């Protein structure tokens, strides 16, 4: 067990963390702004991967898939918000949760009908194949690319929320929807857009994950659990929390798989239980709404 090996494992942990951040981001945004737990998150992630597959099949280019699939699924997400979730505002916070759970069920079956029940391989684009020498060892180029995309998305989100007028309105809207309505802002349009962006980012995560994970109708089930672990550890609705939690979980899983491979899937849930004992609202969380 050399220092080099541990350094390498640490780095792949950070890379895994980047993917986990991507997985959790859409869930966290929608919760942070709208106060809704999207149980269809895993299914939309999977739908994003399939949309990427479909677009890549039509255009023959991974890059088009990377751009078009999130936009398409984001628009689809806006339809979901408009026709399924909007009627539930003002009712119990459990209702959108139950509805999106049912929606996830429906989406998985719909994909099974359209694309079949078997997994479909999604090949890494030619430009991103191969490995890079990092000085401590070789690392797949595609994973570095994913880290780059995640960083870009995080930067865009931060700039959008903190440096634009739209971001200002979104933050104000999530802090106090009533006052924003009094000030004449059409908050329902705002929520429509935010939900669309959240779903779009989820779909982008699906496309990015497609070459690393087998694309199958069931790929969303693990994603949902992972996203929950990351957001619960980080604190619901906190972007900084999601980033730090994603990195912690990534490194923890990666290190565990070095020392005790059979514990790798279990460790993230155990970590969550541990954090909850110390901080019930997560690292950066605020108290849950509705109570």
């Amino acid at each position, binding site marked *: 067990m050399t220092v080099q090996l541990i350094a390498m494992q640490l780095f792949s942990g950070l890379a895994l963390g980047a993917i986990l951040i991507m997985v959790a981001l859409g869930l966290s945004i929608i919760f942070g702004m709208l106060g809704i*737990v999207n149980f269809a998150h895993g299914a939309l992630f999977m739908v994003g991967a399939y949309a990427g597959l479909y677009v890549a099949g039509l255009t023959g280019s991974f890059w088009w898939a990377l751009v078009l699939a999130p936009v398409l699924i984001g628009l689809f997400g806006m339809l979901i918000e408009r026709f*399924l979730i909007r*009627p*539930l505002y*003002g*009712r*119990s*916070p*459990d*209702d959108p*949760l*139950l*509805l999106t*759970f*049912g*929606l996830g*069920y*429906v989406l*998985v*079956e*719909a994909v*099974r*009908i359209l694309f079949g029940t078997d997994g479909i391989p999604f090949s890494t684009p030619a430009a991103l194949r191969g490995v890079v020498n990092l000085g401590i060892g070789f690392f797949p180029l595609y994973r570095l690319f994913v880290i780059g995309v995640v960083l870009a998305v995080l930067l865009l989100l931060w700039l959008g929320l903190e440096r634009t007028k739209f971001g200002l309105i979104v933050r104000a809207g999530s802090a106090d929807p009533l006052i924003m309505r009094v000030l004449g802002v059409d908050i329902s349009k705002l929520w429509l857009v935010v939900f669309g962006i959240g779903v779009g980012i989820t779909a982008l995560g699906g496309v990015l994950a497609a070459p690393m994970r087998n694309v199958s109708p069931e790929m969303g*089930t693990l994603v*949902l*659990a992972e996203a*929950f*672990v990351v*957001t*619960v550890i980080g604190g*619901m609705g906190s972007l900084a929390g999601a980033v730090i939690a994603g990195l912690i979980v990534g490194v923890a899983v990666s290190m565990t798989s070095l020392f005790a491979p*059979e*514990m790798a*899937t*279990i460790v993230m*849930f*155990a970590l*969550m*239980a541990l954090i*909850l*004992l110390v901080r*019930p*609202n997560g690292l950066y969380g605020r*108290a*849950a*709404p*509705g*109570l």
Partner: protein
Amino acid sequence: MSVVRNVELAPPSSRRGLAVLFPGANRWRVPLSVLTLCILPWVLPSQALAVNVLIYGLLAVGYNLLFGYTGLLSFGHAAFFGAGAYATGIAIGTFGVNWFVAMVVGLAVAGFLATIMGMLAIRTRGIYFSMVTLALSQLVYYTALQASSWTGGENGLRGFTVSTLSFPGFSLNFLDPLVKYYAITIVVALALWFVSRALNSPFGAVIEAIRENETRARACGYNVERTKLLSFVLSGILCGLAGTLSAMHLSIVPLDSLHYQTSGLIVMMTLLGGAGSFFGPFIGALAFLLMEDIFSLWTTNWQLIVGVIFILFVLYLPKGIWGTLISWGKGR
């Protein structure tokens, strides 16, 4: 929390509704429920379906104690169902104990797991609770997947059969479908009687008070955390009982019985029937399994239809089938 819908679902009003339909229905709700269950094998398309209604109905009744009456939306109850089933199967298959001891072991393991999970989950509130229960139950799922020398891993637990239920002095042939059905009905009847007693006790009143207004219940001096935990554990033990019955019925425990999709199934059944009503969960299990039975004859994608129906229920009939019937009865 969720004041609007919970007021609509409040059992006191639904009991009043039942009382309008049949005077004294509240006192007779257990015998009436059991009587209905006794008729099931003769009216349903198959006896296999009737046994499933019993087991999943009990599962939903146990879950309803937490979701419908205490107002906590757990997405992790598959863990208790699966734990009860696995513990019973392992007790019979590996340790060769008799059926009664195996059932007790199943209940004990489910109760133990529910205590640990409950202690962690109850620290969180609102929708965090749903996410934490889901994640913890996935921890149980992956643990069972890894401990394949005990649980059979992905193939599920096999190699145990209960063919006779031996009592002191006599024994029952558990392989005869009708004997099996009525033997399980007796256990379910006992569980229903227990739930009914619990709901009519001061404990039942306190959990409903917590659901309606947690802050006020706390201000009234009730220990909210302990009551929630007790409700969580009782609910987990009842789901564990459904698991032990399922294991003895099927002679196999599929790994999927621990998966959160199973938890989702329980939530769907409870909501379809009517959360917070006594007999609603059975109606929900019956409706769900009947839909599965009928639609799966037409199409392998029956889950699509069931999912759409569930979404429509959340949107337009959040009180479920039984809850809506009850409020109609009350309206007249």
